């Protein structure tokens, strides 16, 4: 990945002034100058593999954001004593609100992307990612999940004049005790009431799978976000300063890549407990070496180039040389490994959940898969098949996107984008 041929017209580094020429420059369409990254991304999106991958990721994102409206024991709308109300909205917790708000902000920014400058886009994106969840966490209290079946009872007793249910009528925590049948113990096969069956303590599998999209996305992005930050900083310093910093850094990379991360995760879970955020941090801490490696190679390549020397000569502080001059030019290989990294982080989390060491009481694909083979030798095929397909499709999608990105960047594939 050391030599990447640039698309025509972009042979210079980002931000370098246009080549002065004697003749009148040809009239260009009035458009903001595009980042190389933007060009790479738009070329990637044209590939079939990337489109399939993005489509499935979009489905997962949709399920994650609108989970309470898709699967909930509380109706979307009820009419009680002549007045309409919405139990779903009344019972939203901070994560629901934060996700909806972030989605709204993301859509707004997408439409404003031509008006706002790149810097403001970056600041508002990063700002809202950090601020919105914190604000929501302090404003909206955690809701209790007690008596989730009460709306079904109210409807049965005729207390409600009108009810609009969510497409799936069960919350992930709803163990359906009101419909418990001694002759049909849980887990139950797929039926009319539960399209994909129920799990061991009676919650709807489909509902849990929809809510589990959140964990999959969160682990993918938070864990790999941490890994990218560590990897880019370490790799950048190694590549830019070279010499003994590089030697020391490479030893660090070697140490971390020779620790089998699965065993380290087990150790951490054993000593610190089964906490979702801790698991994300550990995945991040153990998987940064790949990013460091790629960033180092890019920085080594760029450190003696003219635009960097010019920046240093004109007295730009070192951190700005590193992060505003070199980094944007050396970010693309990181993007490829980020896509593969998100896939493997999702895999690691579902593996932990499968081993029974994942976060407690949270809906997760891996923990559903864990219940498929009973200790007594029984096999509940619906608990193996559906969550397994969900994990597989998500991992496959990220890998497809990663491969499309790599093909776009690969000079051998230039001009053969399909």
């Amino acid at each position, binding site marked *: 990945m050391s030599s990447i041929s640039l698309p025509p017209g972009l042979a210079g580094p980002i931000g370098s002034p246009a080549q002065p020429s004697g003749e009148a420059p040809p009239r260009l369409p009035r458009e903001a100058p595009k980042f190389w990254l933007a060009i790479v991304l738009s070329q990637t999106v044209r590939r079939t593999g990337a489109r399939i991958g993005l489509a499935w990721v979009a489905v997962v994102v949709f399920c994650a954001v609108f989970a309470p409206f898709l699967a909930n024991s509380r109706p979307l709308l009820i009419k009680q004593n002549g007045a309409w109300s919405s139990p779903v909205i009344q019972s939203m917790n901070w994560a629901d609100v934060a996700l909806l708000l972030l989605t709204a902000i993301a859509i707004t920014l997408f439409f404003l992307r031509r008006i706002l400058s790149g810097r403001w886009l970056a600041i508002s994106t990063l700002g809202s990612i950090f601020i919105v969840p914190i604000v929501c966490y302090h404003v909206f209290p955690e809701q209790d999940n007690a008596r989730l079946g009460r709306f079904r009872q109210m409807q049965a007793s005729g207390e409600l004049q009108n009810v609009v249910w969510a497409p799936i009528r069960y919350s992930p925590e709803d163990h359906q005790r009101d419909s418990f049948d001694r002759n049909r113990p849980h887990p139950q096969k797929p039926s009319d009431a539960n399209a994909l069956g129920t799990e061991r303590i009676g919650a709807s599998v489909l509902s849990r799978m929809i809510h589990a999209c959140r964990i999959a996305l969160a682990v993918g992005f938070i864990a790999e976000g941490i890994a990218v930050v560590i990897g880019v900083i370490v790799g950048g310093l190694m590549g830019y300063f070279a010499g003994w910093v590089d030697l020391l850094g490479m030893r660090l990379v070697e140490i971390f890549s020779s620790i089998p991360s699965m065993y380290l995760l087990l150790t951490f879970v054993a000593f610190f407990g089964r906490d979702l955020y801790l698991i994300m941090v550990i995945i991040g801490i153990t998987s940064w070496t790949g990013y460091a490696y790629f960033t180092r190679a890019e920085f080594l390549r760029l450190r003696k180039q003219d635009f960097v020397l010019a920046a240093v000569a004109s007295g730009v502080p070192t951190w700005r040389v590193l992060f505003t001059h070199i980094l944007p030019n050396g970010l693309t290989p990181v993007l490829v490994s980020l896509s593969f990294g998100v896939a493997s982080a999702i895999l690691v989390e579902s593996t932990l959940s499968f081993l029974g060491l994942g976060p407690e009481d949270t809906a997760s694909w891996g923990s559903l898969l864990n219940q498929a*083979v009973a200790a007594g030798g029984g096999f509940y095929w619906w608990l193996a098949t559906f969550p397994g397909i969900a994990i597989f499709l998500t991992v496959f999608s990220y890998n497809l996107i990663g491969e499309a990105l790599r093909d776009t960047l690969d000079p051998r594939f230039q001009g053969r984008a399909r």
Partner: protein
Amino acid sequence: MLNYVIRRLLLIFPTLIGITLVVFGTMSLSPGGVGANLLSEEGSMRPQEREARRKYLNQRFGLDKPFVVQYGRWLNNVLPIGWKYNDAGVSTGVGFKVPDLGRSFVRERPVVDMIAESLPATLLLNVLTIPFIYAIAITSGVYAAKNQGKWMDVGTGTAFLALWSIPSMWAGVMLIGFFASKDYVQIFPTGGLHSTESGTMQFLPAWGANGFSRGYLLDAVWHLTAPVLTMTYGGFAFMSKVMRASVLDNLSADFVRTARAKGVSDRVTLFRHVLRNSILPLITMASSLLPGLLGGSIIVERIFSINGMGRLGLTAIEQRDSEVVLSITLVASMLTLTSILIADFCYTIADPRVSYE
């Protein structure tokens, strides 16, 4: 070469110290530190028992000493070479010794014994898996590269990406659920490495008085098929893609054009010139494959009820047997380190151009 070997061996030490620091740091930074199991079970322990454990922890870790001393003491204990102490805690000099990985308080046994029992199963799984991965990857990679752009190549490319994305726990659960159950198809055994009656079997399969007996060897093969299959497919799918890219790279290299121009046949070019150069990235890749394989064997051991290190670790976590968990991580890291080293040496043998002067 000798120079390189020595340098490589010297570099183990910083890596070793780094790994042990991470492992020990995890333990001592955790809530309650090393002595946590003393506190959490305080109520349920008899006074003498607690006193014995406290004495053990103080002697082993020196809990009243600063972190550096604690770490040094622990490191000295787990290394196979260092200061030896007798039972009374008096130094008897420097030399080789049996590494002391601590005691399991749940099973009342030294951890070294428990690991010695479970390590062979894990090693067997991993050692069996690697040749399969490489054989399939090299064959299919060369085949795909030879037919570059044809539908076979494109098809296997996507199929291998899909295969690589299949979580191994899903594959394992589906295999054991559908192919080892009375309700569906019963091809594979439900778990373990041997049948219970394998002790009385003769070694090789044979036709006896009462029909066919599969013998010890075939019995083991039968038990190993599903676990090895689960561990193999992801690896060869990934490696095959690496191999294909590498063969393609070499096919367009100058030395291949020269060989063709001299009139060397396609076959000889491919197998004598290209293949040897193309395997090099696969050897490099081994260093990232091996930690993954070791981690994957935890899942496989769990699904197929094989008494290996991963299963030992999982039970230890459930029982909060901290020193067992710690030792297993340490042993797994050592294994990875050793295998990376072996891969490095293989690389220098396979590629005479590599010089580390």
